[in-house]
């Protein structure tokens, strides 16, 4: 089979000088459009020019001043808040999803379908729409009457309920052969042991998927922290960007420097775990 039949456009086949040039131009254009703004961000944050709306490919006078000023405005604190929220939020979300996935995939019990449907139904329920009542719930948790408004905990606890992660775990755990579980049971292993030592270790790829997805989703959270944080001491870094920008003493370069810090963690996670990411995308969109 010739290479021309491999892809829809058969681009790999054409090797003439004209075709090569055309391909080079097209791919450079793609790169410019999608990576270009991010390069602007990178360059602008190191650029000394007071107005980084100016076009430049390399910083004219490279400097770390933008970062220094950003740190003077408390960016370190916002960054730590963000790490705190993403750390504990992800931990909670993964723990909840793994436990629920185990019950839904490996057990048969009355009302199981109802539970599954109820959890999946929340995927149609964008959190934006629940924003207003969620603030009321967080201000006075029913039954226990705790007020989580203004606290980082208020931004973390709701993150535990994420149907996507439960769905991925359930689907994956269903594929673990029954025989393994039976064998362990015969050997006298208890429920927790089967869960922790047999099923969970076999689900590492799925843990990668929900870990990477959970991280980027939580890092991207905006509305929930916006509603919960009542003053800047509880702001996460994405929220703080707006506060920085509104400050008349702050130049765009400083906003870009803080943006770079807000962007780096999710880009790094994506670059390191690309494979898990691609798997999560397709399982979420096509299979889910």
């Amino acid at each position: 089979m010739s290479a021309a039949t491999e892809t829809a456009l058969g681009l790999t086949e054409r090797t003439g000088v004209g075709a090569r040039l055309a391909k080079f131009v097209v791919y450079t254009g793609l790169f410019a459009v999608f990576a270009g703004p991010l390069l602007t961000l990178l360059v602008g944050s190191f650029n000394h020019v007071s107005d980084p709306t100016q076009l430049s490919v390399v910083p004219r006078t490279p400097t770390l001043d933008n970062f220094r000023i950003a740190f003077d405005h408390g960016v370190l604190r916002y960054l730590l808040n963000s790490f705190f929220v993403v750390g504990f939020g992800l931990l909670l979300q993964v723990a909840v999803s793994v436990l629920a996935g185990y019950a839904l995939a490996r057990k048969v019990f009355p009302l199981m379908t109802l539970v599954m449907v109820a959890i999946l139904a929340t995927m149609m329920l964008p959190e934006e729409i629940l924003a207003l009542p969620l603030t009321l719930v967080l201000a006075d948790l029913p039954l226990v009457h705790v007020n989580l408004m203004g606290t980082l905990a208020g931004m973390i606890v709701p993150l535990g309920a994420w149907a996507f992660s439960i769905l991925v775990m359930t689907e994956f755990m269903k594929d673990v052969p029954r025989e393994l579980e039976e064998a362990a049971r015969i050997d006298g292993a208890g429920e927790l042991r089967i869960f922790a030592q047999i099923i969970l270790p076999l689900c590492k790829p799925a843990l990668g998927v929900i870990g990477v997805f959970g991280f980027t989703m939580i890092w991207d959270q905006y509305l929930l922290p916006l509603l919960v944080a009542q003053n800047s001491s509880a702001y996460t870094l994405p929220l703080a960007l707006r506060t920085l920008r509104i400050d008349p003493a702050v130049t765009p370069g400083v906003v870009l420097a803080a943006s770079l810090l807000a962007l780096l963690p999710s880009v790094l996670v994506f670059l390191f775990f690309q494979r898990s990411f691609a798997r999560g995308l397709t399982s979420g969109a096509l299979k889910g």
Partner: protein
Amino acid sequence: MSVREAARVTVPAHVAPAATPRRGQRRRSGQWWVPWLFLAPALVLFVYFKFIPMAQAIGMSVQDVRPYLGNTWVGGANYAEVLGSDGFRSAAWNTVVLAVGQTAGSMILGFCLALLVEGQTRKLTFIRSAAFLPVVVPLAVTAELWRIMYHPTGDGLINQVIGLVGLGPSGFINDPHTSLASIAVTGIWRGAPYDMMIFLAGLAGIDRGLYEAATVDGASTRQRIRHVTLPGLRPVFAILFVLAAVRGFRTFTEVFLLTNGGPNGSTEVVMTLIYKLGLEQSRLGVGSAGAVLLFAATLVLTVCVQLLRRRRSA
């Protein structure tokens, strides 16, 4: 290593066959409360942060919500007010325009991108990753970055670029005529790579033999795309369309940060309006009615996804 391979390695051959006939007993083994114990954390969190807020949204939407004074039942009055107000109608219209523009833009661009970067060479993998980066950039960062790039004077970054071909300078998000389109462009920049990834997964599922057959029959590239690629991707198109439309309906962060509804209400969308009603004017009842209406619209679209999916798997 896949799960099945792992299992094959770990299970001693003499154990597995003995265990299989016991399938009937498995259901009875363990106590009835074991699955509920594992489900408990999820159930508590879903009840607290999904179901109670949902019930409360519906409850508030038919009440006049007055903190500390007690709520009073007003029936459909909140809905009537929402549906009757010019502000909400124009916000709903802007939301639909934005959703349609972003959905169409990202899908068309995403499809073209997917065709261009389909393939296995290392160079293409690099370009794919670079093109995908916008998706993982936090929305707040995307908005601040584009805000700076949209700088409305001639020395703004995009104004300089379009100045090279003799256009502009444009006011972008500061001009009521271009503000909504500018937000849509930002959304397309972030949405197209996502759609590209999904299309790539769909393209990988197309039978290579069909391309070969088409080429042997003398089909041009355009004919191959029209008669082989597009029909093969039809389910992907349908699902992406509805997912993107739902995403468009709930747009909040980009608009909030880029224009916050301005200039002159030209970019007000339903979510920014609900935010203002609920948090700035403390009109929780009216805001909730708007949210419930938005949910109804989302639900209709999501039901469409489910029907499409079912038809595909049937």
